[in-house]
């Protein structure tokens, strides 16, 4: 996991935005995929406690598997379940 770092652009939606305290963040990171990225973000934002198993992940405006490899400049959105009406 000691590969070269690259920039990843992250957007939080709904409850994740509230837990992280911001809508967007850009990270210089070496993580392999969104799953590992979320773990790294949880280290940065202690309030981010939402379980990763209940998240949807979008990568470059398409839903993606949390284990999909990330590349430089990717845009990742973490989307929690939303049900209010």
């Amino acid at each position, binding site marked *: 996991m000691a590969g070269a770092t690259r920039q990843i652009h992250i*957007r939080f*939606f*709904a*409850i994740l*935005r*509230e837990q992280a305290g911001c*809508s967007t963040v850009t990270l210089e990171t070496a993580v392999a995929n969104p799953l590992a990225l979320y773990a790294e973000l949880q280290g940065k934002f202690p309030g981010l406690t*939402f*379980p990763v198993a*209940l998240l*949807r992940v*979008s990568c470059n*405006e*398409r*839903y993606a598997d949390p284990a999909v490899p990330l590349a430089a400049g990717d845009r990742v*959105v973490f*989307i*929690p*379940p*939303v*049900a*209010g*009406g």
Partner: protein
Amino acid sequence: MFELTAQPIDSTALSARLAAPEAGALTTFEGRVRNHHLGLPVTKLEYEAFDDLARLEGEAIVSETERLYPGSKVLCVHRTGSLTIGEAAVWIGVASAHRQAGFAACRHVIEELKLRLPVWKKEHHPGGAAEWVNCTAEAAARPAGDDFHARQAALPEVGAAGQEKLASARVLVVGVGGLGCPAALYLAGSGIGRLTLVDGGRVERSNLHRQILFTTAEIGAPKALAAAARLRRHNASLQVTSQESDLTPQNARTLVAGQDVVLDCTDNFTSRFLLHDTCLALGVPLVQAAVHRFEGTLDVFRSGAGGCLHCQWPDRQPGELDTAGTCAGGPVFGPAVGVLGVMQAAEAIKLLLGLEGDAPRQTRLVNLLDGSQLSVERSARPDCPVCSRLDQLQAARPVAVTDTGLFVAAAGVKALGAAAQTIYLTEPGEPVQAGRESVPAQDLPKLRELAAAGPLVLTCRFGVRSAALARLLRAEGVAHVFALTQT
């Protein structure tokens, strides 16, 4: 209580009947005979009621109003016979704790009477000429050159043909809350033919900042009923049905079958999955929205495009998503549900007009706090246990081909069998058209006889009388009587 009377109306005596120590308001309305109609002088009026149906409809309107405005007591009396200028033809009194419910209830009764009560009046003009005037027709009339939808039909993407499509469309809105209220209001404005509203809840004061169909007068009223009444006042050409219960596995298929589009305006994943699966099995497009505080999501699901809800949440149970996600009763920014609800109406109308574009393959994320919007592309998971095996899903639960509800569309009449007869109900004074099987609306014995012979489909000029008579015959135990959907 509703009464028909041939005697002059004594408003003092009627007011006294509504005396109640807990009622801080008595609101009354009196409809009187005036000396002119459509520019012509009038000397007197004769009122003729279709007794059986008038009493039934009158009582139905009164009891519906009392449920709509809990705690209010309604008395309504309608005259029959010959009336002179200035005489009272109808009297409505509402005793209620506060004025808001009184005014609203009084208004509701007179609007519904005008629309539904089978009472006809014959106008006498100076010189002895006389003609029948249809109260229903007056209330529901779409005058020639009606421009209610003109500015929408003027859009090249809509046009007269698109407006016709909307008029024949059936839309189901499940949940009449923050999303459902604005969605239903814009659908009603658009000229949708039939709208069904489903909600088992009642209006609460804490709903009012975002549930824009309701006012303080409706607090305590069943939401579906209150919303239906409000929408009918907005657009008289809309046929709106209310179902005062929540969506359940028992009623989901009956509600969804025969709809052209369904709107999910519920607030929990259990209902969302149930509605989604029912729509998927029956092949009905679904427009789903959900809101958390300032943010919302919008999804259009249509078989064969962009996967299904299970593709998004593989192996997840509705219960765990509800627990983890937003909770009902949480804080919510009113305009967020407003915007998302209106977007649902827009997507539904676009689906009906074939203007949906890429919407059925996207999730739209909307943030009202920072003003951002983002579209995320959905795709079907090849291994999805639900939509990749749709054939099995449909085969396991066969789709009902006949709608056993009260209403039937023209295209569905054939499915009722070769013996099915369509009968046009004429109002007094309405000419009988050649080549159309007609029966006077008041001729109940004849209608009973026809219903006994086989499936009977009733229609009339505005669809109000035919629906009321179909209901009356159903109440008498006739199973195969239907009301034709107006297009």
